[in-house]
């Protein structure tokens, strides 16, 4: 039995309508990762996070709370929580995260910004207008809440005169590139994942890492957006040997992440199966999605590391700063 679905989805819809996010974060939590990077505000090309990397530690914390209620008759408690959440944002209470957890996810955004700079790609950032793209509402069939959010994002991009968007996770890439044009009339912003942008530039690595890993394709990059070769070619040029697990590329096996909130038990079971397939090939697993990374990490046994592709790429393509 899952956690009470109706109240959980109700809260998601309420948050999106009222607070413009699935899990409304404080402003600093959204934009803090940019500290010291001097990324200009706005511009025709922007790096767009859709708050995904920033939100995952909060999703994690929230799921730990929700998991306590899986299989218990807690419908009433959830319905009370939903009513309270309408007037008071409960996210900071239900999804308490530590500075260390947040910093680990922010670091991946910093990696990506450094990689784009190393590749001499000019880009800006929308700061407080870097809004959540609404993917969860879309997936859960809350179509109207999603449509309203998509329109808000489109309006923000238009206001800033954005023509091109560089995304940093598969879900935001899919929403902006493939779903927005079907729900926002006239949406014609060009959308590319940073992996595509970097791969197009045919960069030369500054350091050949000489490491061996296995790569977990995200379902959304692989089967929705066709991003398959880019991470592989970038790693290969960086001197990384990429071993393919059982079920890879277009036939990849899900990390279980989409079920994390509503069916935490099932989600962990699927994640364990995937970690088994991956670690049979290499104990060093590389992902390209914050949700995959978090979900696989949760069940990975000692000795199996789950890291983001940007962790490796930053070492291969960004010159190491000379110590002062």
């Amino acid at each position, binding site marked *: *039995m*899952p956690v009470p*679905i*109706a109240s959980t*989805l*109700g809260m998601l*819809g309420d948050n999106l*309508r009222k607070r413009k996010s699935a899990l409304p974060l404080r402003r600093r939590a959204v934009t803090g990762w940019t500290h010291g990077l001097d990324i200009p505000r706005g511009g025709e090309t922007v790096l767009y996070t859709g708050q995904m990397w920033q939100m995952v530690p909060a999703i994690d914390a929230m799921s730990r709370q929700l998991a306590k209620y899986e299989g218990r008759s807690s419908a009433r408690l959830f319905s009370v929580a939903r009513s309270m959440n309408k007037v008071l944002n409960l996210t900071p209470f239900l999804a308490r995260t530590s500075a260390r957890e947040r910093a680990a996810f922010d670091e991946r955004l910093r990696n990506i910004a450094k990689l784009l700079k190393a590749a001499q790609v000019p880009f800006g950032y929308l700061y407080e207008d870097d809004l959540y793209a609404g993917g969860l509402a*879309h*997936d*859960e*069939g*809350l*179509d*109207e*809440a999603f449509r309203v959010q998509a329109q808000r994002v489109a309006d923000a991009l238009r206001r800033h005169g954005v023509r091109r968007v560089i995304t940093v996770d598969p879900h935001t890439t899919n929403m902006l590139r493939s779903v927005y044009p079907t729900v926002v009339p006239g949406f014609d912003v060009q959308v590319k994942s940073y992996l595509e942008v970097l791969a197009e530039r045919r960069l030369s690595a500054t350091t050949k890492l000489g490491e061996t890993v296995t790569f977990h394709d995200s*379902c959304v990059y692989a*089967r*929705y957006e066709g991003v398959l070769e880019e991470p592989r070619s970038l790693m290969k040029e960086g001197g990384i040997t990429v071993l393919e697990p059982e079920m890879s590329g*277009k*036939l*990849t*096996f*899900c990390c*279980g992440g*989409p*079920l994390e909130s*509503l*069916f935490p038990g*099932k989600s962990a079971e*699927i994640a364990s*199966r995937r970690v088994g397939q991956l670690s049979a090939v290499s104990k060093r697993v590389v992902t390209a999605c914050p949700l995959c990374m978090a979900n696989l990490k949760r069940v990975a046994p000692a000795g199996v590391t789950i890291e983001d592709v940007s962790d490796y790429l930053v070492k291969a393509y960004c010159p190491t700063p000379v110590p002062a």
Partner: protein
Amino acid sequence: MKVDTEFLSALKLGGEFDARMCINCGTCTALCPLGVELMPRRLFRYALLGNRDAVLGEAETIFSCLLCRLCEANCPAGIHIAENVRTLRTVVNRDVYGLAEA
């Protein structure tokens, strides 16, 4: 079994519910990480037969789909399975969970 024509038209309105082309081969169910007999072939059968109660009675199962498209990548009939599940979710949200959207 009651055939609910209103339910059938709701599915058409909810998006492109294209399970009609299904040849019932079972590939999707065999591959699905959920390992649930109902998913997704049987569920679509019920929906196409207009068996509203059978579909809405499976609300939880409908929300357990990962939308991972592993089934779709191997479906010989090219059915948009994940999008069909999403369409069913919109109906469940409205008719079972009372999440009528303003």
